Each structure stands twice: as C-alpha cells, then as structure tokens.
C-alpha cells in the first residue's frame, strides 16, 4: 500500500472514522509493524486530551422561550381571511375610481379655438380707461 494512503487510513482510524471491516484489513496489513500506527494513535490521543475543556462544563437550564415560535404563529384560516379582505378592499377601490380624462373637455377646447377679440370689438363699461397693450416695443 502507498505510504500516504496508509497514513490517511491510520489517521481516519485514530479519529474513529473507519468501519470495522476496514479496521480489520488494516490490522492484517500492519501485522508485525505496530509502531506505524502507534505514533499516529498517540498524536491523536494527545490532541484529544489537549482539546478537552480545562473544567467540566455545566449545562445551564434552557433560557430559550418555548412559546417563542407559537406566539407569532397565525392560523392558516386567519391568513386566508385577511388575504380575501385585502383583495376585496383593493377591488372595491379600483372600481370606484373616477374615469381619467386625457383629452380636454369640449368647452375648454371651444374656448381655445376662439380668436382673441380686437380693441374695437371689446365693449368697455368700466370708469377706468381701457389699458393699451403694446405688442411692439
């Protein structure tokens, strides 16, 4: 077996990630050469010890709220009813909207078409004199 492959298998075994069958095969392969595995086993065992917490951890009582998810959960039927209400409201507002006019009303259009009366055509009844509008300065 390739030495790199053997090393990888030994590491997996030391980490407890090999199946029993593969373990047995590896034992057979290593028969008479236990020192190869011993070094890796020792390294992993030492690392395992070094990673353990200095003090035993005490699990505190749970503080998460049991009903946290329940408090905000709304029944499906209520969501359905709310959706229907909103849809109905939107529909009623849509149908009640005034019709928008893009073209001017006939009266406005007529007024726009009429020519501006001349000074002579205007009947002036005010006591104040009629202003003179100079078009050419």
């Amino acid at each position, binding site marked *: 077996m390739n030495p790199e492959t053997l090393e*990888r298998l030994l*590491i997996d075994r030391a980490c407890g*990630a090999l199946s029993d069958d593969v373990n047995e095969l590896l034992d057979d392969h290593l028969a008479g050469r236990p020192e190869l595995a011993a070094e890796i086993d020792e390294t992993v065992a030492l690392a395992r010890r070094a990673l353990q917490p200095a003090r035993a*951890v005490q*699990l505190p009582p749970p503080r*998460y*709220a049991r009903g946290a*998810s329940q408090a905000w959960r709304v029944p499906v039927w209520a969501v359905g009813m709310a959706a229907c209400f909103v849809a109905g409201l939107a529909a009623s507002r849509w149908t009640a909207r005034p019709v928008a006019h893009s073209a001017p009303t006939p009266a406005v259009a007529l007024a726009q078409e009429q020519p501006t009366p001349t000074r002579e055509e205007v009947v002036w009844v005010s006591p104040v004199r009629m202003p003179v509008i100079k078009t050419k300065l």
Partner: protein
Amino acid sequence: MDVQTESKRNMDDNAVSVDSLYRETGPQLLAWLARRHGDGSAAEDLLQETFAAVMRRPEAALRSDSPRAYLFGIARHLSADAHRRPKIFEPMPAEVAAPAREEDPKLAAMREALARLEPPAREILELRLQAELSYEEIAAALEIPIGTVRSRLHHAVRRLREAMKKETDL
C-alpha cells in the same frame, strides 16, 4: 382533530424534541463554544442564542439529516458574528482566565502545536475530537464537501505529528 389542535400538538412535540436535543448536545456544544469564547458567560449566551434560533424554526433542525450538525452550523455562524461584534469588555488574558497548571510537557507541546494550526484545520480537529461529530456531520455543519473535511483533518494530524516529532528530538 381540527387543524389548530394538530398544529398545537406538533409544536409541543417539536418543543419536547428540542429539549431533548438541548440535554444531549448542549454539553458538547457548550464545551466547543467555551473553547472559542472562553469559559465565561459568552459561551453560555451563544448556546442559548443557538437554541433560540432553533426554536424559531424547530422543524428545520428536527428534519435535517443530522440535528447535531445543524446545531453546530448555527452555533458557528453565531460565534463568528460574536467575534465580529465590538467588545465592550476585553476578554481576560488567557493566563489569568486559566492559570498555568502542572501538566505533562507533551500535552503542553500539543497545546502549542494546536494553537499554531491554521484555523480551518483546527476547527475540523475540534469538531471531530472534542465535539465528536462524524465526518459527514462536520461537512454539513461547515457546508463544505466531505473530501475537504478528510483532507484538512489529515493535514492537521500530519502537522501535529511533525510538531511532536520536533519536540521529542529537542
């Protein structure tokens, strides 16, 4: 049984399952968090935050392939967020928080070698040897392929072996 009663029963079942998950996985998770954040209240707070996050959507945790891996995944994200947050109080220096103990020189050398490992390799080693997650669970928790878990773990052990060899030769 009407929909509301059934939904209520499901919620109760979920809460009971999360409670048992807390009892079974809580100690390992707390030890793992304590290693990252010290033995103080920060680790405990993160443990509670993790379970509070699970309680918001318990089905996701309980229906995942490995609820343990799911928990560690959440805890890891929360832990990373906590590291990014500005700290009001600086953590106590390591030698004050955990006074030097009389210990095996080999163990001390191993602690140093572990501290010198690259964070991704050390993280996988912690999850395997301390939290005792399987390779598959580590892959799920870290959201990486299982081949990457394997190769990083092999690399980490190889580095530790080399460091220990140097220590013995000295």
